[in-house]
């Protein structure tokens, strides 16, 4: 029947975010972290001790967002030293850039690392193959969300495809289980050159809680060059969108 559909449509209204470059997340969101040094660093030591992934170094003071699970517990223990902001622009081409120091006021994208052919070839259309390698489904759902009615990243030609043959790159989520190491490798090899590697989520970047587990095999990341690192537990759709737009030359951070 048509009437119920009109009702749904009316209530639905307009949902898309008109300008993806102009999005502010709720104050509660835990994104980029800001560090400040104090003369007494005992709070930081306590925070470093409880951090479940040893993401905090006390001397010199730094926090690795590639290991961080954004649980926020350290900020509660060392409120003078550690503060989470709602800045979601935390992706980078450089793994080191994810390590925040008291001097960091924004995450450096390191545009110079972007291979020349990437914006040229993929600036108008980028098709990606996602491989979940022991991801816990939250990062995967957020990647799905990038194409939904709200974010609609498809408007820039960025989409996920089923076949690696149709893809220009791979997006890896999860700490990479042993059983997925080979399928991931086969999938990546099936993607035609030139191709990109995006590592999405803190668990994928550093192994997260499973970094030491005997059930994971992270050799893929030693073998291949990574073009984009996107922290988060899970990575927020806006972090993904911002990172990819910078990578393919649609904006400059």
């Amino acid at each position, binding site marked *: 029947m048509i009437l119920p559909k009109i009702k749904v449509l009316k209530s639905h209204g307009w949902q898309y975010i008109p300008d993806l470059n102009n999005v502010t*997340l709720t104050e509660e969101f835990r994104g980029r972290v800001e560090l400040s040094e104090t003369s007494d660093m005992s709070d930081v030591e306590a925070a470093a001790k409880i951090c479940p992934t040893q993401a905090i170094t006390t001397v010199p003071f730094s926090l690795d967002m590639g290991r961080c699970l954004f649980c926020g517990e350290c900020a509660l223990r060392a409120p003078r030293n550690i503060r989470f902001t709602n800045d979601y622009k935390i992706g980078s081409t450089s793994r080191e850039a994810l390590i925040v120091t008291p001097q960091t006021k924004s995450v450096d994208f390191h545009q110079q690392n972007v291979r020349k052919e990437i914006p040229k070839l993929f600036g108008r259309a980028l098709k990606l193959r996602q*491989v979940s390698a022991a991801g816990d489904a939250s990062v995967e759902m957020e990647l799905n969300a990038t194409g939904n009615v709200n974010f609609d990243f498809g408007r820039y030609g960025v989409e996920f495809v089923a076949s690696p043959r149709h893809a220009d790159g791979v997006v890896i989520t999860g700490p990479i289980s042993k059983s997925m190491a080979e399928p991931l490798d086969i999938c990546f090899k099936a993607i035609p050159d030139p191709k990109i590697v995006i590592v999405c989520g803190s668990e994928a970047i550093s192994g997260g809680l499973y970094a030491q587990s005997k059930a994971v095999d992270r050799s893929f990341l030693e073998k291949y060059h990574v073009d984009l690192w996107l922290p988060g537990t899970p990575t*927020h759709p806006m972090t993904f969108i911002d990172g990819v737009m910078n990578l393919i030359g649609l904006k400059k951070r």
Partner: protein
Amino acid sequence: MIYYITDNRNQAIHLREIPEVDYAALYEDLKERLTQEQYHVAHYFARPEEQKLRFYLILLDDATAQIMISSFSMEYYEDIALPSLTALHPALHPFEREITELYNVEFDSMPWNKPLRFAFNRRNRNSTIDNYPFYTIEGESLHEVNVGPIHAGIIEPGAFRFICNGENVLHLEIALGYQHRGVENEFTATDNRLRQMLLSESIAGDSAVSHGVAFAMAMEKLSGKKADENLERERTVALELERMAMHIADTGALCTDVGYQLGQVACEALRTMTINTTQAWCGNRFGKGLIRPSGTNKPLTKEKVEMIRQNVAQIKRRYNEVREDIKTSASLLARYEQCGNVPKQEMQRIGGVGMAARASGVSRDIRSSHPYLAYGTELKHESIIKRQGDVMARLMVRCREVLQSADYIEQILSNYTPAESHLPDYDSPLKEESISIALMEGWRGEICHVAITDKEGKIETYKIKDPSLHNWLALALAVRGEGISDFPINNKSFNLSYCGHDL
């Protein structure tokens, strides 16, 4: 008595209280008991204890809210095969398979003796996921379709092997284990309770609140530091928000897979609104960071209570419109109705749980059978049951549960006064040599966490059961006889967890 009897609100139990019986006695008892609908096994596992292997079996009685625990032991390298319970009650297959995989204990006449998840610490290292022993049928008119481990969409991996007769599925076998991360082992490898808490949130990211609550409950039973009443109510709200978000997401996915774009986008927007509500409460769209043992970092404030109430009321109204629309769209009903049928008897036999079981008329729901948090006290929960057991029934259970969850949230929050809250507790010592059992009903179904501590009160064994462990078999049965092109909607109607199964 061969069982120790407790319930879901009780404290942890010292291990010496748990009866150690003969396997034969337990076998005889379960043989009879499990034919009755009110009983099912919540968990059954083995662990090394001193010089032996001790097996724990946790039985639930839905009629009396009892949790019944029994155990038996055997020497290592004892060369006897235990008569298989799976042979009588197929519902036990994942448990017996896990025991065989990890400890090489054989079960006599076990009809489906296959690896469960190719755990890294399995006994038989020659058995690898690439040579999973798929069932085969010979026949000129048959062909096989292999899907996975990597699937077409952005979802987790798993290998599906269809045996088809023309377009119709004769048999589907699902081989899992690709997502195995060694979660249970990581729990025991650390003393950092915050790390353990975060591990529980990562068991299945779409059920972070559910598994988080199960872990918190398991710890509180061991530390004796119970959650206060307000905290219990907050957790109930968080759980029902998670249920709403996932059921709405799956309603949308079911629309996507039949090409119904209006339903799809309306649900996408409503799910966004639901998870953004959770995010505005705790900073994470999946509720990570919200559940902590014995306390909270994110107590509800007056403003947040109002924000949640307003959003939930709007989501409920708009979602109900989508539900009405689906119910009156003949082309949708033609796809959903009488597709992927799992009759009640079958669901019962394989031990189906949660919303999928309820769609087949099996009234299994921890919220009513083994109450916890605000269920059974403030909320008099009545499960939503459908009889048909098809895709439509599973969709309708979801639809009704979304509305019910919205009502529960409103009921709790409409007379909620924020009070002084406690901070999380990561340091309290845990009761030594004890077993703690936490049961809860996630949006998929029954979640069971079991923690066993050693002489120092350190977690020595941590066992997790996600409802998917039981329900994957229901999906395999649902598609029998259906066109293979109906697989996607069947899959979405269950939406099971790979990582929750593989651990």
